[in-house]
């Protein structure tokens, strides 16, 4: 059974809602780092700025990682015939986690979970696997919106149902999670992904919630199927006076996996 973790602090960079976010990025990073690293840095910095506690490990959740950098490498190969080493380094899915470890001097475990729309649930589950000494854990969920995906997603959605909605968001959402249940703060845990096995995704999520969180848990399903929407929903719930016990459900159409994040207000 998954154990609850406590949410010590959280923060979000949602570029569409905060178009001037880049002004907050230190000039040295703005000059040399890819945009997705900058998003990761700023969400982590804000999350850690809200507490005196320092994380001892990092878990990142991402659907596609630094996709723009992957595209840049391939453009180099298929176009001009030269790939920049920096593009390649940044294209690796765990580049954000490595960058954050360096920036914030976090020497503990450094994991990256790539689970599409279920990336938040997967990252929280991975955090729960770490030894006590590696808490608090900085969990960060991040994905970027690039033009190529905007062109592709309508065709993907034809095959995979709700691949991405037309107005899907990019974001970087950070959570600092503690292990002790005696701390103040809201509680969080996650389940899945489990194969939906041809069921309606909502039905698959409902069963998962019922089996693990009980009937009293109110289910929040995401109509917007972007990779980061579950993390945005959790962040918004943490900063609201909404229901005491909810499940934020997620579904990845390409893996046919359903998951949920359970939240309890203390």
């Amino acid at each position: 059974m998954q154990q609850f973790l406590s949410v010590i602090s959280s923060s979000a960079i949602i570029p569409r809602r905060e178009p001037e976010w880049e002004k907050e990025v230190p000039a040295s990073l703005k000059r040399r780092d890819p945009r997705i690293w900058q998003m990761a840095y700023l969400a982590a910095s804000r999350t850690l700025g809200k507490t005196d506690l320092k994380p001892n490990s990092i878990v990142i959740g991402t659907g596609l990682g630094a996709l723009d950098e992957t595209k840049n490498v391939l453009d180099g190969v298929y176009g001009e015939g030269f790939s920049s080493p920096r593009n390649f380094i940044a294209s690796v899915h765990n580049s954000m986690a490595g960058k954050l470890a360096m920036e914030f001097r976090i020497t503990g475990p450094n994991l990256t979970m790539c689970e599409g729309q279920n990336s938040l649930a997967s990252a929280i589950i991975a955090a729960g696997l770490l030894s006590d000494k590696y808490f608090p854990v900085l969990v960060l969920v991040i994905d970027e919106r690039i033009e190529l995906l905007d062109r592709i997603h309508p065709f993907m959605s034809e095959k995979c149902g709700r691949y991405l909605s037309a107005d899907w968001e990019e974001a970087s959402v950070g959570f600092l999670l503690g292990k002790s249940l005696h701390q103040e703060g809201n509680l969080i845990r996650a389940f899945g992904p489990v194969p939906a096995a041809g069921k309606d995704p909502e039905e698959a999520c409902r069963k998962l919630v019922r089996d693990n969180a009980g009937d009293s848990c109110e289910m929040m399903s995401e109509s917007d199927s972007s990779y980061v929407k579950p993390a945005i929903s959790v962040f918004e719930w943490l900063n609201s006076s909404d229901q005491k016990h909810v499940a934020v459900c997620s579904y990845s159409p390409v893996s046919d996996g359903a998951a949920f994040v359970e939240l309890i207000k203390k």
Partner: protein
Amino acid sequence: MSVFVAGMGAVSSPGNSVQDSFSAIVQGRDGIKPLSIFDSRLKVPPLCAEIAEIPEKYSDLYRSLALAMAAVDEAMHAIPDRENIRIGILVATTVAGISQTERFYEALRKDSSIIDRSATEFAVHEPTVLAGEICRRTGGSGFHTVSTACSTGLHIIGMAKRFLEQGTYDACLAVGTDALSILTVRGFASLMLLDPNGCRPFDKRRAGISLGEGAGAMLLTTEKFISRCISKPLAIVSGWGASADCFHMTAPHPEGLGAQLAVKDAIDEAGIAPEQIDLIAAHGTGTPDNDKAEIKAMKSIFSSLPPFCSMKRTLGHTLAASGILESVLAVKALQEGIIPPTAGFEIEDEEIGASPSEVMNRPLKHVLKNSFGFGGNNAAVVFTKAE
């Protein structure tokens, strides 16, 4: 609670089974040759360990899934009756299905009208697709996709251990897979990390890696379910350690500080003293910095360096698959009591001040496996002989 290795599978350049791959390792076979499965567009085709022929049963699958399923099927032979067993699937990959999607992207750049083929061509780009598919094909209860570059294959073994200890699953199938792709070949070429003579781990003349492709799979379970398996436990997963260097995105810490943390954690969790390690199956990529830092780290932990080996000249560097593929072969070495040789090594580097072991027979009880990756990511696992 002990976590047992109950089944194993391997697909590598020199062999499509654990036994064939292990024989190649023990013979110190050279597994690399000029890349031929696609055009890298480099002036000289790089030396790689490519899989000449995907087993026919899997030939309709995209390459990384085909490799994974071949290893999975071999490992899952260990547990023919899977009824009422909750199996968690953990997948390690760096590039997932990109060997397929990059071909589509190349075509799309030339002809934008083919974008309506995205649905069939691009769907395998997300790493989670691999885990979802393996879960469906094996009747798994849940799946988890990890991508921490070249250390991933060991992390999934450690995470599987935790899942079993927590009781989330009754058994876990840890699978690492990576196929050769233009992204990785050109990427490592741009970093000038491909040795034109093929990788020579720990050798004085070493000048970089040789990429490879392959897959490894391990079925792990506990005392309660081991009786459902057809054979005795192959080994115990006794410790996992993980850390970050916080030094550089691609270069290791020169003193191997991050590596030390991960290895110490793994040995501590195993409940043994460093001196009890009988063999180190090193990461041993063949780059000047990595090999030097790895041995520096090991020397700081072990008062007397145990025998060590690298399998990269035989298997190539199979990225996320390397940790688990080489773990499978390290467990085989543990079972057989064989210290493998290091193909490609000839001349000791005085800066390293140690040479990998010659092949020899010796009873082994504890084997340490190391894997390190981009982002300063470190992982170590200790395997212990099952009595």
